[in-house]
């Protein structure tokens, strides 16, 4: 295959693009900046933002550079169904959380973080478990986006990786620091327009520049039968199934989603999250198709690193003007997620750290804002330091996503079932982690009886995952029925073989153990919880709320 030479930017071009991108973003954030920001506004923007801005923000936040690279990698590795098995399940993470989000908003309409609600429901240990997992997820995400920025800038310009990381980190901090979540959400709109607009142009441009559709015929011989079929079992078992298992875990474990659930006007949650599902899915699957095209073209990834596929395709087939658009698309994707992570981390430290330490009545809004801003600076510095280690982000995320699986049932049950206690929550999560870790890292040989036990627990995990998904939309009876049928249907195929897929089975075991233990302990509890208590315990920290944040509709 005759592949054109790759294009590179000069120093001046990259500096101009970055200064324009972050300069315009900063100017937009100053339009809503206040001399004295409101502490609650800094975290949730007054709980009443509209559909357009919240749908844009949810879409922009969930699309990050790694998701585009990973979708293309999936397309390159597993063939034509690969991007679907990455993007579709990632999109459903947004969709499947909204019914739970509506319930959470109903019991805690003025909350700032999910962990804060967990404190009101249970107490300190449950709160710390959830807040801790949220912090780990956001720091990894922040680090990943800085790495993606550094890698892109070093690939397309003479700048070094670390110079690229510093430029992106400084740019994101510049426009997020003063107004927090409000700046993050408003700038998300501009970034989502740049990202989605770029995909509309770039994917067809590369498609035709690379001599498709004719190349489908000339390149068909390079695909294996599994890569050439839309119903690839390889793609499903290695990419799709672990992601289906992670659908609820990522949504529960991620404070950036919770923050938007608390920020959007309550009657717009469904509309917002459904739109973001389509926006994320189409964008990520669309970019993933570049991996499929690279497979048909027989392209080898630069340096043997599949993460280079997307920038490589762009640099090879796009004219300089469209390459600038591609550059802005990736910078927009990583910046919109990084600013959300900074806002999420500052909210957790402000609410679950300072707010809980001194008590809601004694919390000073000014001190709270100062703590939020210091958190952003410290988190940025930490993420830059970690980024220089260039760890494998996807491995870290798959691991953390499976860990979050241990939290899913106890968290969701805590919002619906009045028997769940702090003891049930804490013991079930610890027990799930105690089983998850040996399975995930094969610390015990998964053979014979141990393998069968893992398979049985995994089958129960399949029932839990699918049952919870259905429960969110159709209630307990339908959820229980679907969960039971799914487990029974999977059992003949899974028992005896599933433990060979350690990533998937470890994740499913985390779900099942936490569900079984939490249920058994909760059923013994006779002291029933009154959910109306949460509304009284969780509320605004800043009395100036009503003056500062006018309602979004009259």
């Amino acid at each position, binding site marked *: 295959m005759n592949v054109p030479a790759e294009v590179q930017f000069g120093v001046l071009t990259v500096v101009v693009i970055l200064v324009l991108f972050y300069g315009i973003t900063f100017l937009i954030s100053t*339009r*809503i900046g206040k001399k004295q920001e409101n502490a609650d506004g800094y975290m949730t*923007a007054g709980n009443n*933002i*509209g*559909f*357009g*801005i919240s*749908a*844009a923000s949810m*879409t922009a936040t969930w699309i990050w550079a790694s998701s585009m690279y990973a979708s293309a990698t999936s397309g390159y590795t597993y063939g*034509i169904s690969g991007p679907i098995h990455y993007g579709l399940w990632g999109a459903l993470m947004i969709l499947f959380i909204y019914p739970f989000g509506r319930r959470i908003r109903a019991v805690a309409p003025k909350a700032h973080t999910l962990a804060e609600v967990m404190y009101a429901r249970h107490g300190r240990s449950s709160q710390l478990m959830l807040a801790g997992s949220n912090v780990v997820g956001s720091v990894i995400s922040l680090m990943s986006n800085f790495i993606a920025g550094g890698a892109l800038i070093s690939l397309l310009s003479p700048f070094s990786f670390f110079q690229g990381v510093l430029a992106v980190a400084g740019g994101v901090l510049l426009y997020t620091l003063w107004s927090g979540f*409000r700046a993050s*959400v*408003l700038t998300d*709109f501009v970034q*989502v*327009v740049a990202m*989605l*607009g770029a*995909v*509309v*142009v770039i*994917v*067809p441009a590369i*498609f035709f520049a690379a001599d*498709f*559709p004719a190349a*489908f*015929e000339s390149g068909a011989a390079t695909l294996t039968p599994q890569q*050439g079929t*839309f119903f690839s079992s390889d793609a499903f078992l290695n990419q799709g199934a672990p992601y289906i298992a992670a659908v609820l875990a990522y949504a529960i474990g991620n404070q950036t989603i919770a923050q938007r659930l608390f920020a959007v006007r309550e009657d717009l949650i469904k509309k917002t999250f459904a*739109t973001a599902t*389509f*926006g994320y*899915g*189409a*964008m990520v*699957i*669309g970019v993933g*198709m570049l991996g*499929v*095209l690279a497979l048909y073209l027989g392209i080898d990834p630069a340096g043997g690193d599949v993460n280079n596929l997307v920038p490589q395709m762009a640099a090879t087939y796009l004219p300089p003007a469209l390459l600038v658009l591609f550059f802005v698309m990736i910078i927009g994707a990583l910046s919109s997620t990084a600013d959300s992570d900074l806002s999420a981390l500052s909210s957790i430290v402000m609410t679950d750290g300072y707010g809980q330490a001194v008590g809601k009545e004694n919390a000073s809004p000014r001190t709270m804002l100062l703590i939020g801003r210091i958190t952003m600076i410290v988190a940025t510095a930490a993420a830059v330091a970690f980024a220089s280690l260039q760890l494998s982000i996807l491995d870290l995320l798959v691991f953390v996503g499976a860990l979050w699986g241990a939290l899913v049932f106890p968290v969701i049950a805590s919002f619906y079932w009045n028997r769940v206690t702090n003891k049930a929550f804490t013991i079930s999560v610890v027990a799930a982690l105690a089983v998850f870790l040996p399975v995930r890292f094969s610390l015990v040989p998964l053979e014979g009886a141990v393998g069968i036990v893992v398979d049985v627990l995994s089958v129960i995990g399949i029932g839990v995952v699918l049952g919870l998904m259905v429960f969110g939309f159709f209630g307990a009876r339908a959820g229980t029925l679907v969960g039971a049928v799914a487990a029974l249907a999977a059992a003949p195929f899974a028992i005896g073989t599933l433990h060979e897929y350690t990533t998937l089975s470890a994740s499913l075991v985390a779900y099942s153990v936490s569900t079984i233990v939490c249920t058994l302990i909760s059923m013994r509890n006779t002291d029933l919880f009154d959910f109306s208590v949460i509304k009284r315990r969780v509320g605004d920290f800043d009395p100036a709320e009503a003056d500062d944040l*006018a309602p*979004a*509709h*009259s």
Partner: protein
Amino acid sequence: MSTIALTVYVLIWPAVVAVVLYVIGRAFFTEWLEARREGRDII
């Protein structure tokens, strides 16, 4: 899959993205105009 089916399969995603962009953009500017009329920030 045939060449035509593959072409549609690849190019349909940018088309869906364009529709979502239109929906989000229209809603945002409606909200922005409303906020401007009422003399407040959109967020």
